[in-house]
């Protein structure tokens, strides 16, 4: 009875044990079992105390049976793990510990199974394993190693990657002294020692880029970090990372070098280089462009052409930019005239190139401008020179023609007359021929004088130009032509202000005025009075003197080519031999002026003389 009571008490006691515990007999039958045990297997009280324990362990009953048998034999068993899926198919990890059950007399009567739910612990373990794996993979991919310094034991641990970076075998055992020696002697090593000390003494973390020499003698760039390892507010060591960044550093250096090369190139190109954004604001300018604008680059960046150039120029440039943005096509080597706000004109050979991003959208415009003002100037000079040469060439040709024609006609006459003279027997006729020879000789001399005059005008290009009062000049000429004016009954009306002055060679000016005025007087309509009007005006850099008559006039359409020709006359006037205007024309050319003639037969002639003020 007492025994029964004791047994019941025991049973009750075991039933309530917080740790899952089961007492099994040597036949694996359940003797006592705690509720907590049953709870794990979700069997509650349905289980009979005589039931076989192995039925609960569906998956691992064989292993359990083996272990139990060992316990029944009085042997020790190890802790083992098993898993169990509950009704919700959730995994539960269990650990069993089996000990031999003795009675009071130390006889083996069974075994005690104690279960522990290790689900959480297992999960943690698995997570840790996974993390370790990830870390390993990560460190291998990123080439980031880790290290750990235990301050208490003064032990240093390197992970495999750290060892690989140092090029030491995986069984290498580092210590602080040897680890520091890997750092390149000098500032790198000193710095790392300093960091290590500060971390121990002041708890400071570090990140440092240094160079190491590996066990195989290779020089590498590494990035090492370290931070204090604190547990329970106590410093217990340092943990850190170790990364090989040699490739990054080399790439960085290369990029820097390339950038420097490009920058130096762009900066020093003898071309104006700029980049503009879509609003035509400058985002980059090189030295040439800065020099051209006359501002330092930081004062140009962000400005558009409207800030820098007159409106019309800026507007033109903006339109070109927009065209490049819209068409996405570069405009290459076109001539572009630029005017600065101070009025300086520059001719550029410009190219505008759209800069496209990966989506083929224009993000900015690159511009190159080559200053070709000098070339342009030279081109203009060349054109001018060409004109002068062409003009002079024509003059020379004309002159050569005149010489060949006029001189030839005289010599032909000599030759002919001499031929006659040789054969002539008659004395009177011989005298006649000799008279004619003398006359031919006089004509030749006269022609030579005329030609000489023209040559002089064209060779004495540096005669001094003086200020000449035009009305003074006219009054002298009118005095010279007094009798002619009287004979022809010409009336001269002078509307030129007395103050009018022109610049020229006095001799030439007088001859020109004399010729033009005498022509106006001379070629009057028979028996009609001739009204001659003198006037003056300013036209750009010319003072224009107009001599207008109501005389015979001349058909200029017919006589255009001959008007200023040598020995050309247009009217039956005995004392005109066609040299006056030819000389006058050469003289006005020499003074860089010009003539302009309007004439109508039987109406009159208006003769304008342009005196150049700039010479």
């Amino acid at each position, binding site marked *: 009875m007492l025994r029964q009571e004791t047994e019941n008490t025991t049973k009750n006691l075991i039933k309530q044990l917080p740790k899952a515990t089961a007492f099994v007999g040597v036949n694996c039958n359940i003797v006592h079992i705690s509720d907590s045990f049953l709870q794990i297997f979700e069997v509650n009280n349905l289980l009979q105390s005589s039931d076989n324990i192995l039925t609960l362990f569906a998956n691992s009953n064989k292993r359990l049976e083996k272990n139990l048998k060992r316990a029944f034999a009085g042997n020790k068993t190890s802790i083992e793990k098993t898993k169990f899926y509950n009704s919700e198919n959730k995994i539960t990890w269990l650990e069993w510990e089996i000990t031999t059950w003795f009675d009071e007399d130390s006889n083996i009567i069974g075994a005690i199974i104690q279960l522990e739910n290790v689900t959480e612990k297992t999960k943690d373990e698995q997570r840790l394993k996974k993390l370790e794996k990830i870390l390993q993979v990560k460190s291998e991919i990123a080439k980031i190693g880790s290290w750990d310094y235990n301050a208490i034991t003064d032990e240093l641990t390197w992970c495999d990657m750290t060892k690989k970076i140092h090029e030491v075998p995986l069984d290498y055992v580092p210590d602080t002294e040897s680890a520091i020696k890997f750092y390149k002697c000098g500032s790198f090593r000193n710095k790392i020692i300093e960091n290590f000390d500060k971390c121990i003494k002041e708890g400071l973390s570090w990140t440092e880029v240094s160079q190491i020499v590996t066990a195989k003698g290779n020089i590498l760039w590494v990035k090492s970090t370290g931070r204090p390892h604190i547990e329970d507010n106590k410093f217990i060591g340092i943990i850190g990372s170790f990364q090989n960044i040699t490739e990054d550093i080399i790439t960085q250096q290369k990029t820097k070098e390339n950038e420097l090369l490009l920058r130096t190139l762009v900066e020093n190109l003898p071309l104006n280089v700029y980049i503009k954004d879509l609003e035509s604001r400058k985002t980059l300018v090189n030295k040439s462009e800065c020099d051209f604008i006359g501002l330092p680059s930081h004062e140009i960046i962000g400005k558009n052409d409207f800030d820098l150039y007159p409106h019309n120029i800026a507007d033109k440039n903006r339109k070109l930019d927009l065209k490049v943005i819209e068409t996405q096509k570069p405009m290459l080597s076109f001539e572009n005239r630029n005017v600065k706000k101070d009025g300086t004109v520059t001719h550029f050979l410009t190219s505008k190139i759209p800069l496209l991003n990966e989506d083929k959208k224009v993000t900015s415009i690159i511009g190159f401008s080559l200053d070709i003002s000098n070339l342009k100037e030279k081109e203009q000079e060349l054109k001018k020179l060409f004109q002068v040469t062409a003009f002079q060439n024509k003059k020379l040709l004309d002159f050569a023609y005149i010489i*060949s024609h006029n001189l030839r006609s005289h010599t032909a006459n000599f030759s002919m007359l001499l031929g006659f003279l040789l054969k002539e027997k008659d004395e009177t006729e011989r005298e006649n021929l000799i008279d004619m020879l003398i006359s031919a000789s006089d004509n030749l001399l006269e022609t030579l004088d005329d030609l000489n005059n023209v040559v002089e005008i064209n060779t004495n290009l540096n005669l001094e130009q003086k200020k000449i009062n035009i009305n003074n000049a006219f009054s002298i000429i009118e005095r010279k032509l007094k009798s002619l004016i009287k004979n022809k009954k010409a009336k001269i009306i002078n509307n030129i202000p007395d103050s009018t002055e022109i610049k020229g060679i006095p001799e030439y000016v007088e001859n020109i005025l004399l010729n033009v005025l005498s022509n106006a007087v001379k070629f009057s309509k028979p028996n009609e009075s001739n009204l001659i009007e003198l006037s003056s005006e300013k036209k750009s850099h010319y003072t224009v003197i107009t001599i207008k008559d109501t005389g015979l006039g001349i058909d200029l359409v017919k006589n255009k080519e001959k008007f200023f020709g040598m020995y050309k006359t247009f009217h039956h006037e005995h004392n005109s031999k066609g040299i006056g205007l030819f000389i006058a024309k050469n003289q006005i050319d020499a003074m860089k002026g010009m003539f302009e003639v309007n004439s109508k037969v039987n109406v009159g002639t208006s003769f304008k003389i342009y005196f150049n003020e700039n010479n």
Partner: protein
Amino acid sequence: MKTINSICIIDDDTITVFGIRKLITTVAICNDIKTYRNGELALSELKKTIAEKNELPDIIFLDLNMPIMDGWEFLEEFISLPIEKTIKINIVTSSINKEDRDKSEVYMCRTHHNLSYNTKPLNIEEMKIMTSSI
């Protein structure tokens, strides 16, 4: 000696005119040699001759470089005159310019008159040709 009815000399140079006249007398007989100082004077006279239906000259000696109306201007007007008979026109010039010679060839093609280009000084042989085959 050959007889020529009428000759016309258009030249402003008296010595040349004298020379032409003298050379003519050595190769032919002509009692009607008229001289004009420029093209305009000659043209108005010739026009008058046509209008009055008088005999036109058989030969014309024409200078190129003359005042008022030069030889080319004269030719331009003359070839457009209504003249049936073929007149021998001898250009007599001191110009040895190729342009002038080329220009004369253009006129040769444009007219039925017998046009020739001669440079001064003239000699008897040339004068014989200039007065032949009227």
